[in-house]
């Protein structure tokens, strides 16, 4: 690829990205409903369920020695991941919508490469997800996280990485889907389990028994569980009971990076395939 090609690919990607972001900014209903969902999460689960659960890690044997973490703080990283997950899903759904309503044809007959389109879509999904998460993070000082700009920056970088993984996965699924119905079918089999598994990380413990073991094992293949794990460690630091983290944040990030490549590479290739 020459320098010229690269410049053209990036310009094309920028164009696709620009439209996605512009659309989001103008789509007040979508922004509003995503904020509403965040508030429901925070109040309903964070404080509601938090009132029942109390502190996480203080009384259980594994967390002995630490003061424990308020449930709302424990669950907040999972809420951020959930928000990013939904935003990324929405963005990839827009590819199929665009195709169904002819808009994608317009992009595909324009003199920009398919790679540009795929990259622009990933960038668009990431931006939209990150903006929504960033808005949610404004609540962090209010729920006792204090104000640590560097921590917040790390968290945002992780959210960017995670939403890139999910958007890439979405594009891989959407690349060859002709109809919204077909996409939603496949989406159900991929996104529903991921959503449910991510909901699992709202709980401080799965308890014991066969089911818990199965759930834990399955969580290993859920990209979101690595994002939650890393975000928890970054946001709570040493206050997080040791036994409640799976890997170090670095390992989590590396796994996410690998997943991104695993999803993005075939996604872009499939997108480039012409009928």
């Amino acid at each position, binding site marked *: 690829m020459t320098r010229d090609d690269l410049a053209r690919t990036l310009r094309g990607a920028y164009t696709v990205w620009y*439209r996605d972001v512009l659309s989001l900014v103008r789509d007040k209903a979508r922004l509003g409903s995503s904020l509403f969902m965040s508030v429901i999460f925070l109040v309903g689960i964070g404080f509601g369920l938090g009132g029942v659960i109390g502190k996480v890690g203080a009384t259980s044997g594994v967390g002995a020695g630490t003061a424990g973490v308020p449930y709302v703080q424990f669950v907040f990283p999972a809420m951020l991941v959930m928000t990013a997950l939904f935003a990324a899903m929405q963005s990839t759904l827009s590819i199929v919508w665009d195709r169904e309503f002819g808009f994608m*044809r317009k992009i595909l*007959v324009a003199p920009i490469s398919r790679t540009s389109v795929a990259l622009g879509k990933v960038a668009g999904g990431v931006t939209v997800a990150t903006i929504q998460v960033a808005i949610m993070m404004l609540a962090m000082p209010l729920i006792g996280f204090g104000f640590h700009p560097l921590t917040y920056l790390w968290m945002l970088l992780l959210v960017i990485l995670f939403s890139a993984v999910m958007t890439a996965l979405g594009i891989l699924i959407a690349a060859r889907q002709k109809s919204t119905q077909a996409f939603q079918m496949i989406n159900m089999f991929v996104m529903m389990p991921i959503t449910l598994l991510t909901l699992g990380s709202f709980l401080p413990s799965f308890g014991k028994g066969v089911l818990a073991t199965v759930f834990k094992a399955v969580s290993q293949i859920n990209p979101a569980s690595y994002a939650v794990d890393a975000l928890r460690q970054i946001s709570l630091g040493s206050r997080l009971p040791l036994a409640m983290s799976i890997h170090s944040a670095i390992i989590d990030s590396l796994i996410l990076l690998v997943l991104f490549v695993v999803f993005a590479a075939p996604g872009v290739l499939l997108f480039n395939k012409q009928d």
Partner: protein
Amino acid sequence: MPTIEVRDLTRRFGEATAVDAVSFDVAPGEIFGFLGPNGAGKSTTINMLCTLLKPTSGTGSINGFDIADQQDDVRRSIGLIFQDPTLDERLTGWQNLQFHGLLYNVPQKVFERRATELLDMVELTEKVHRGVKTFSGGMKRRLEIVMGLLHHPKVLFLDEPTIGLDPQTRLRIWEYVTKVRDAEGLTVFLTTHYMDEAEVCDRIGIIDQGRIVACDSPDALKTGVGGDIVTLKTADDAAALAALTSGGFNAKSTGAGLELETERGDEAIPHLVRLLDAADDCRVKSASVQRPTLDDVFVRLTGREIREQEASDLDAMRSMHAHHGGGR
């Protein structure tokens, strides 16, 4: 050199052959139309020419660029107006245009001049800053025309451009297209199943079941079907019939008047009137000429009619579809 050159272009989907060894040329500045029923292979052909679909075999070139090997150059040379809207409903008209300008890398200065000029032509200047959501079907189509022409394409493709639009809007859209053709030497390729739309074309390819069954100017196609039908009403039809027969015309009585087939009906009428005036009691009360329509041409060539009913059902589905799309 023709602007569009197509040789034995073929596309199969599995067992079915959608486009079957189609060949034709379109000269610079020509308006060329594909006329045929739904499923005849019109859209498949357009999709191949626009680089959206790979040909199974055969070749095509646009503006001198090969549709398989020089896709980027082909894409830069063409503008498209599809049957389905390609607007982002969440953006304003102007933002849609800006997006288009970015896609085609139109320099900002050129963009502003061209967009202003085209918006002026389609009379959308005042409304372009509103959300596309609020646009009527006709306004959307006019905005699409602006987009199709924004990057100074050599060829404009129109895939059923006026489907679901009212006759007045259809007429206006054709005014715009022919205006730009005359001013800039634009070559136009369109598909349609509307006969009146096909009349605008310089040449028509009639396509049925993936094959071109005839390709000529609308007038030549109609002449090929047969002559004009001249209908006469006279003071005494029986006497007039006798006079015409002895005058060498092969006329017949339809009960409501006399009918005869002749090559140029408009030129035949003065002769007929003079002939009948010379005879007794056969004064001509009225005369009319009916040229064969493209409908007649299609029926003659394929043995079937282009079923308008089927088409309008599809239109209705389409507009419902578009309506749902507006709510996303």
